[in-house]
């Protein structure tokens, strides 16, 4: 071969050698375990397992020689995950978490993504080791009880919501105060205490609070004021402040989900609540920052811990012209309670009875003190017209008013936008109700259902619709670049945790839970799964919920090494394959 070929040939060979060496080194780093630097190797067992060499860290100490039979492998753990289609972000989260725990702590975890309905069923029945599910940012969850209720140790039976089955008298007491204390500052102390207790105990992993990403058309409308949580503009406060820049007076939202129900007595799904809250009027509405504001109620008065008086606003009418009276309010609550509407039960449960006191005053007598009553109950139950609903069951021959089918139910309400058209899986059209007590620039709202988010975004860019919510990070990056659009990353009070079944081994041991918390690199997860658009979660209540969030709770930032140290100190060891062993 001529000399230049030799040169090239040998250069090629050395390149191959280099890449091979690099590859092998990389591989060695991987098998060497995570936590510290890649080149780490397990320490020998001779000196009792602790590593005195600071730069290598703790490693994976094995049992002392002769004591191997005092340990056995921790069992195989199943992580019930969610499918990629249902939530790409949680899909990535569960992959990252599984790897972090396997490599960092030697836990034997198998990740099984499952269809949401299966996942949800396992959740409800407490039948899981580790489970992935998200707590959505519904407006009622801005009140601390809205989210802390899911961790109430009193509700730990299968079928109830404290699915981790974590028990604690202290937490029980703190949560009771949260539910019943009306004084905001007093209540705040207990909300803080509850967060501290939960952070100390780590009954589940608090991972992140994802931002809500959305984009809106900047050409036709301006002065967008988003509300905390999902669907940022679909509320009276954002809509009333919006400015018209052209003569366009129809605001179109592109959504990938349809409105599930239109019959208040058969309510289900967050989208239905959001949709109907414009057609109907509740007594109280939640402002952009989460504060309750007078809506159909002109004012309210906490007479004592179990009595709330509400003064109805004057001069309101329903869409058909009939006046809104205190009788309608009493009728609504009595009707819903009599017919036992499942979805609303937790809201009206605290009510013992509703009285009319004259002078437009409606008195709510509660069974027990209930702090979230105004913020949650009076917001989630809207006023139904007595003259439409009171005879519906006899006239139509139903057994229950919920039988009034979705597309036939009479939607007469007193809200600012009356739903005039509805086609399933297609769209809902609202027309502005001029007699409402607030002004809105937009005359018409349309909720348009899209089969694909990408098409909706394309239409937004073309100016055919005006708002798309629930964007993924990559889509958000794209809309940000478009000068015709206004993009929003709104911090959310929703929580994405990882549920741990405390009543199953090894999760009953608090040391294991602490170790898992340390091992979880939450910022890394936010960077990968959310591309940075989220906040680290240290307790159920998000930083975005400023008043109630407790910033001074234990955080678990030690990394896998600290996790292993905790496990070591608690008597755990590892075998030669770096799998976790527990003392027998």
């Amino acid at each position, binding site marked *: 071969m001529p000399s230049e070929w030799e040169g090239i040939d040998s250069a090629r060979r050395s390149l191959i050698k280099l890449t091979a060496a690099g590859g092998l080194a990389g591989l060695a780093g991987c098998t060497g375990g995570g936590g510290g630097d890649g080149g780490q190797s397990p320490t020998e067992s001779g000196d009792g397992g602790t590593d005195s060499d600071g730069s290598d860290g703790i490693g994976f100490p094995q049992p002392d020689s002769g004591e191997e039979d005092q340990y056995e492998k921790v069992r195989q753990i199943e992580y019930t995950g969610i499918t990629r289609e249902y939530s790409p972000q949680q899909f990535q989260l569960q992959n990252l978490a599984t790897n972090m725990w396997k490599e960092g702590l030697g836990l034997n975890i198998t990740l099984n993504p499952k*269809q*949401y*309905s*299966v996942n*949800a*069923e396992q*959740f*409800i029945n407490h039948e899981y080791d580790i489970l992935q*599910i998200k707590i959505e940012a519904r407006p009622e969850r801005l009140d601390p009880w809205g989210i802390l*209720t*899911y961790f109430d140790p009193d509700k730990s*039976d*299968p*079928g*109830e*919501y404290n699915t981790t089955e974590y028990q604690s008298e202290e937490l029980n007491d703190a949560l009771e105060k949260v539910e019943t204390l009306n004084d905001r500052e007093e209540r705040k102390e207990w909300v803080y205490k509850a967060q501290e207790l939960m952070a100390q105990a780590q009954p589940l992993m608090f991972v992140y609070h994802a931002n809500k990403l959305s984009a809106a058309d900047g050409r036709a409308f301006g002065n967008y004021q988003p509300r905390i949580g999902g669907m940022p503009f679909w509320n009276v406060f954002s809509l009333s402040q919006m400015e018209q820049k052209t003569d366009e007076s*129809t605001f*179109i939202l592109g959504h990938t989900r*349809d409105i*599930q*129900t239109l*019959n208040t007595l*058969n309510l*289900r799904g967050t989208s239905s609540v959001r949709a109907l809250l414009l057609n109907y009027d509740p007594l109280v509405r939640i402002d952009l920052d989460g504060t309750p504001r007078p809506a159909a109620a002109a004012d309210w008065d906490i007479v004592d811990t179990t009595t709330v008086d509400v003064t109805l606003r004057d001069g309101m009418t329903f869409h058909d012209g009939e006046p809104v009276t205190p009788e309608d309010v009493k009728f609504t609550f009595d009707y819903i309670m009599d017919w036992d509407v*499942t*979805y*609303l*039960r*937790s*809201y009206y*449960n605290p009510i013992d009875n509703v009285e009319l006191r004259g002078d437009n005053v409606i008195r709510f007598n509660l069974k027990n003190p209930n702090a979230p009553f105004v913020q949650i109950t009076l917001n989630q139950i809207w006023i139904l017209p007595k003259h439409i609903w009171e005879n519906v069951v006899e006239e139509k021959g139903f057994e229950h008013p*919920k*039988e*009034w*089918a*979705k*597309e*036939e139910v009479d939607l007469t309400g007193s809200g600012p936008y009356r739903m005039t*058209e509805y*086609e*399933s*899986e*297609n*769209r809902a*059209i609202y027309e502005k109700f001029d007699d409402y007590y607030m002004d809105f620039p937009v005359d*018409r709202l*349309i909720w*348009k*259902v*899209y*089969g*694909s988010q*990408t*098409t909706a975004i*394309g*239409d937004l*860019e*073309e100016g*055919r*619709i005006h708002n798309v919510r629930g964007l993924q990070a990559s889509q958000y990056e794209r809309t940000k670049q478009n000068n015709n659009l206004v993009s929003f990353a709104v911090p959310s009070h929703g929580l994405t945790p990882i549920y741990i079944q405390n009543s199953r081994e090894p999760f009953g041991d608090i040391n294991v839970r602490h170790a898992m918390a340390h091992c979880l690199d939450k910022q890394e997860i936010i960077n990968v799964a959310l591309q940075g658009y989220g906040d680290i979660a240290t307790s159920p209540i998000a930083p975005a919920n400023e008043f109630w969030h407790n910033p001074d709770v234990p955080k678990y930032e030690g990394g896998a090494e600290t996790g292993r140290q905790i496990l070591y100190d608690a008597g755990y060891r590892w075998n030669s394959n770096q799998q976790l062993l527990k003392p027998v």
Partner: protein
Amino acid sequence: MNKSRYIVVRAGLMVVSLFAVATLLFLLFRILPGNPTSILIDPGITKAAREQLLASYGLDKPLHIQYFLYIKNLAIGNLGVSFTRNQPVTKILIESTLNTLVLILSAVLLAFLSGPIIGAVFAWNRGSSIDRYGVISILTLFAIPVFWSGMLGIMLFSFRLGWLPSGGMTAPGAVYDSKLDMYLSVDFLRHLMLPFLITTLYYLSVPTLIMRNTMIDVMGSDFIEMLRAQGLDEIRIMFRHAARNSMLPVMHQAAISIGFAFGGSVIIETVFSWPGVGRVLWIAVNNQDYPLAQGGFLMIAAIIIILNFLVDVISVYIDPRAAIKGEGF
């Protein structure tokens, strides 16, 4: 005599198939993990409430009783009430199927009318460049997944060129006095154009290729030689004789394709945000809405089975040899 017996036997098989499908659907949904209440996660929904809900759906009864009620209702044409919408399933299916039919049926019809013609031309010019490049194009069309061609179509015609809307049946704010008014409006036709085009292209390949291949077979047969020898011109031989005899497999395929088109419509309907029965069924399955899902799939199965039956009947009249072949089973 052969013909009527053949038809009666076929009709009997049809009923048996329908019954088998109905049973299979019933079992499938009840074997699937989860139930309609499992996705309702809300503090208000206690264990007792869930059980109450299940009872209201009739899901607390023993399996054989549920089955008996199900078959009894089917026999009188009652498909039950949707869990999620509280409306009779039949009503929901009729409305959404109409939307799907307008799109799918017209596309399949056009594909099966023009496909055989193109296929015949290919077969007749077999080996030439028309045939070679034509077949390659058709095979490419066949290989392209419909959601990809759909999205490409949207990207090109809706977003780049701005000629057509990106989806839906009508403009978001357009309101019509009746469904018929909507179907006849220019707005609707504009919205129909793109999904119709993409769907037609998608279904074009099968009839084209079947026609081509069958005709090539037919062209090799003796009677064609005979007709040529008699002095008939090529066009007449191609269309009047060769093509007609090749129609039978295409017709059978049409029946099958219409059925599959209903099943595959969910993809097209998702890409184009078309509110049809495919999407309704997809959502019903995800929400564990058993009556709606069962009713919908049963309807699709019934359409396929009935269409096949009709094609069998028609084919016996077109080609009496089918009855003879059919007898020996």
